[in-house]
């Protein structure tokens, strides 16, 4: 087990001489019998981006909630500028200068940008809201942060990324000393992340202490100055980002589980593609405004990776292959049977499974138990009149909880109480239980911790080795390349390249995507 270390011994840099704006010392929080946080200490310095690192369940969210007054701490001390504070409500924490922006934007969609930014603090004249003054103040703040948005526009009209920036603008407008960003980048594309980082840097330079949570290591290395690594509710270490290699960081975060990733790297593609039986052939599959006519053949025992940017058509192709959306054009041939897919039900009957990229909206049934969630697809295909016998239920659920290492290992736990990684494993189990021949996974590892990620990747490789045909879609090129035997590259709603994955590099793929981009943009200049 890692020994606890007190932060001051670890970091001996000039920064350490400065006073932290917030210091949390020996914080413990207990829920029932579970110790969610066990003597964790964190120091936040002004003008620094501080990354909280750790797997899901490491205690990051609990720590944030302790700092924002959502949970009251059982023991430990929180000091702000050397003064001891106790927060019993989010309001008290906000008054002390701590602002939070959560992963899901919680603003009012049908109000304007300015109204959202000044909600509850609207400038008034003669009792009525002074709209002009409100827009002026909002514009000033936005300008100051370099966010190019009309304060009079309705929030809803803007993409999530912009809404998130507005949320940040709102947060810093209340004179925040500390800004907490809890996974703000999980649904943003690269450009949007860059915009967010620009704003973060500007705030940092003004002396705001920023707490940043993200699953993307590259982003941490780009933006963060210091990080605190947690594991299982305990402090592992506080580190300066510049003095820690990625490999070291991953090892600190997940300890032994790194070996799983290593082993997987070696075990990956044994390219004997095109050897197996074609299970599904799509010819000219397309849908208006969604996907241009696309050809694709899936073979037994092969992982097909689909690479492409957000909106490139990768998700759209998956949905057409599953009948989640109906195709306007093209033909699907299953083994030798030609069929149209009119609903997911048709696809499931043809032994196809599809796990959506939108886990929350299109996968998880939050108020049902883990067991019910796992058995949903199988039960649906049996029809309601033929319930799965109790013994079979228990057997299947226990087997998959064990095989996929789902935690808590409690079939009766409510799905919504599980972490993202564990929910994803339950959804994977839901489809494996139906014993599909074709498994389509759209971003199965997004927003989940690195341990669960490794486990899911290992499972995919194992399933393909057993003869399943897997379509693997991910925004992370490294992951797609590591897993797939064959690679399909998409861009602008069509397939632009397909090749056997014999050590294709990330650079190759990026160039394929970018090359198309250059060719298309040239005439405009």
């Amino acid at each position: 087990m890692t020994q606890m270390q007190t932060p001051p011994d670890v970091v001996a840099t000039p920064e350490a001489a400065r006073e932290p704006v917030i210091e949390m010392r020996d914080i413990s929080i207990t829920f029932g019998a579970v110790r969610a946080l066990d003597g964790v200490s964190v120091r936040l310095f002004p003008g620094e981006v501080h990354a909280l690192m750790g797997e899901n369940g490491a205690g990051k969210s609990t720590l944030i909630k302790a700092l924002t007054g959502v949970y009251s701490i059982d023991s430990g001390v929180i000091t702000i500028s050397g003064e001891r504070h106790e927060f019993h409500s989010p309001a008290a924490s906000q008054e002390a200068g701590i602002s939070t922006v959560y992963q899901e934007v919680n603003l009012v969609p049908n109000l304007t940008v300015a109204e959202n930014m000044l909600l509850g603090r609207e400038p008034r004249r003669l009792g009525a809201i002074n709209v002009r003054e409100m827009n002026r103040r909002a514009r000033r703040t936005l300008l100051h942060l370099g966010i190019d948005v009309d304060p009079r526009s309705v929030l809803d009209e803007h993409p999530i990324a912009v809404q998130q920036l507005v949320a940040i603008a709102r947060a810093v407008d209340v004179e925040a000393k500390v800004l907490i960003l809890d996974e703000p980048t999980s649904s943003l594309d690269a450009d949007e992340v860059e915009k967010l980082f620009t704003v973060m840097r500007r705030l940092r330079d003004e002396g705001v202490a920023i707490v940043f949570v993200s699953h993307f290591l590259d982003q941490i290395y780009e933006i963060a100055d210091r990080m605190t690594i947690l594991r299982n509710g305990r402090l592992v270490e506080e580190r300066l980002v510049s003095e820690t290699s990625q490999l070291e960081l991953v090892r600190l975060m997940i300890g032994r589980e790194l070996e799983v990733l290593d082993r997987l790297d070696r075990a990956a593609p044994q390219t004997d593609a095109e050897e197996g039986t074609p299970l599904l052939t799509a010819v000219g599959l397309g849908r208006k405004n969604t996907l241009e006519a696309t050809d694709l053949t899936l073979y037994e025992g092969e992982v097909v990776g689909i690479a492409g940017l957000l909106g490139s058509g990768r998700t759209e192709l998956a949905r057409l292959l599953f009948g989640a959306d109906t195709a306007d054009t093209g033909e699907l041939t299953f083994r030798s049977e030609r069929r149209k897919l009119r609903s997911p039900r048709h696809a499931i009957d043809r032994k196809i499974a599809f796990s959506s990229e939108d886990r929350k909206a299109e996968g998880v049934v939050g108020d049902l138990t883990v067991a019910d969630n796992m058995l949903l697809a199988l039960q649906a295909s049996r029809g309601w009149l033929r319930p799965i016998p109790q013994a079979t239920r228990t057997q299947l659920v226990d087997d998959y909880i064990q095989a996929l290492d789902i935690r808590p290992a409690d079939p009766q736990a409510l799905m919504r109480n599980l972490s993202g990684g564990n929910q994803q494993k339950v959804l994977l189990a839901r489809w494996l239980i139906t014993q599909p021949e074709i498994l389509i996974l759209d971003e199965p590892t997004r927003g989940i911790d690195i341990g669960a990620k490794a486990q899911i990747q290992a499972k995919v490789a194992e399933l393909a080795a057993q003869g399943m045909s897997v379509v693997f879609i991910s925004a992370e090129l490294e992951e797609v390349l590591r897993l797939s035997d064959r690679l399909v590259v998409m861009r602008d709603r069509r397939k632009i390249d397909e090749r056997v994955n014999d050590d294709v590099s990330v650079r190759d793929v990026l160039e394929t995507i970018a090359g198309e981009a250059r060719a298309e943009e040239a005439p405009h200049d």
Partner: protein
Amino acid sequence: MTETTTRVQRVLRHPLLWPVLALVVLVLVNVVARPSFLDVRMQDGHLYGNVIDILRNSAPVMLVALGMTLVIATRGIDLSVGAIAAIAGAVACTRIVGAGDEAALTTAVMAVTYALVVCIVLGAWNGLLVSVLGIQPIIATLILMVAGRGISMAVTDGQITTVNNPFFSDLASGFVLTLPLAFLIALAVLAFTAVLTRRTALGMLIEAVGINPEASRLAGVRARTIIWTVYAFSGLCAGMAGLVIAANTNSVNANSLGLWIELDAILAVVIGGTSLAGGRFSLAGTFVGAIFIATLARTIPNIGIPSEINYLFKAIVVIAVCLLQSPRARAVFRVRRTPRPPAAGPAPTAEPAPATAGVRA
């Protein structure tokens, strides 16, 4: 010690706690107002008393509420149940009046069967509008709520039809094993619904569709069939309620039979703890909710509330019960949990913090 605390906690967290508590309080109010309220005696070979009346009177609301529970669990609502009840009464009564032997058992059975089949068809019509045509449930069932009154008027030619069939009137006033037949019918339907939903996979699939329709669709759940089924079932339940109400007066008034019963039924469902947002449902909760509504109706004359303000009284009680169930409202009244002293670990004061953590690890 700890075992008792967990048991207490389990009771405190039980979803049925608040509805049952509300019912107990309501009964206590009645007992205080009239100490003989709970008295039950044998008379004419069956039980007799306020409690028995309440059980009997709860039957129509309970029947309607059972169907409503499943509809609400799929994120729907069925406003047409009152009108369907009226149609059931109208169809059954006109069949009985028009039969050769008005007082025969077969006449009653035929009339009842005929009426219930009509109600299933009407429920399926609602299901068609909601699941196939995609009309919002509140609008889809509003159509039949309005049109249904017209249909029942047409069936009875706008007349109050009185019937004379002892078997039919037994539906409301008969007793079996000293208990009111109407209540036993409601109980039987409750048991049937429980078996239908919990012994098959129907309940789980209903809940899945209600909690996350899109995820259910992608998992291959045939939401259409399920929604169709629950509306048809709701129609059947409403029909049974209508027959019990008609049998109670041995007549049918197409204008007033089952008027506002949809609201009582929705209340019973909500008081029972099933969320109007859909998802998890509780048949036991609906049972308690229906008894509560019937008890409330009895309370009004019993404690001497003037009849002019009985709707107002009912509204106030319902608001109170709903507030009791709202976690946010309860939090306002609850005293904040005092933080425990940080004496959880062994010898916390003597040891420096890292050492303590080491021991725990």
